[in-house]
């Protein structure tokens, strides 16, 4: 069978699995379509090699000016927030192994950020300079979490 792009699968379905008014749709037609679909998909149960790069939607946490922010990987592996006051960025608690990168941008009233609950922290210190940006790379495997801060200016 053949790995095909989504548009090709759709056009094949229209061409090969049309309404069966004349009863010429065979088991082989359906079997071929299902196998093409299986060979084209990335399946959770299979080890596979990705043939393309994939884009992510960035989850926007908005403006944070106080309190504690706990990142959830289910929102996205790429997140962002605006620092407009002293707050705490807590280690994620969701079970499983994952990585999250968060972009933090300072606003006019940016405050100190406390990295709380991580097994290890490393990298640059945050600033409170308006417009400064930081990547924080967070990883979690088993009970270990790390946060690495990278100043972007």
């Amino acid at each position, binding site marked *: 069978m053949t790995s095909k792009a989504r548009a090709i699968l759709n056009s094949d379905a229209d061409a090969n699995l049309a309404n069966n008014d004349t009863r010429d749709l065979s088991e082989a037609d359906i079997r071929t379509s299902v196998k093409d679909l299986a060979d084209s998909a990335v399946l959770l149960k299979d080890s596979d090699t990705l043939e393309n790069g994939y884009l992510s939607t960035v989850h926007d946490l908005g403006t944070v000016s106080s309190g504690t922010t706990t990142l959830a990987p289910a929102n996205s592996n790429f997140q962002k927030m605006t620092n407009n006051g*002293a707050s705490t960025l807590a280690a994620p608690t969701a079970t499983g192994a994952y990585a999250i990168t968060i972009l933090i941008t300072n606003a006019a009233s940016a405050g*100190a*950020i*406390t*990295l709380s609950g*991580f097994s290890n922290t490393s990298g640059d210190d945050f600033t409170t300079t308006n417009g400064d940006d930081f990547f924080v790379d967070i990883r979690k495997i088993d009970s270990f979490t790390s946060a690495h801060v990278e100043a972007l200016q």
Partner: protein
Amino acid sequence: MTLALIEGSAIVQNVVPGSGFNLPNGDRVSPALDGWTNGIHRLATVVEADPVPDGKLIVSTDAEMVV
């Protein structure tokens, strides 16, 4: 200028303003700013002692009030 990291009413350590520092529980905070507070921890400026008057000598920097 130096900042004092205070836990409750006790000074834990001195901190350089603008730098990062660790709390006793391992949490990392940056930057160090006068007036920062988080639960039982806070930062306050360490006020320099007054100069010693001429003719006087410091014999101790500890004092205990006995009533």
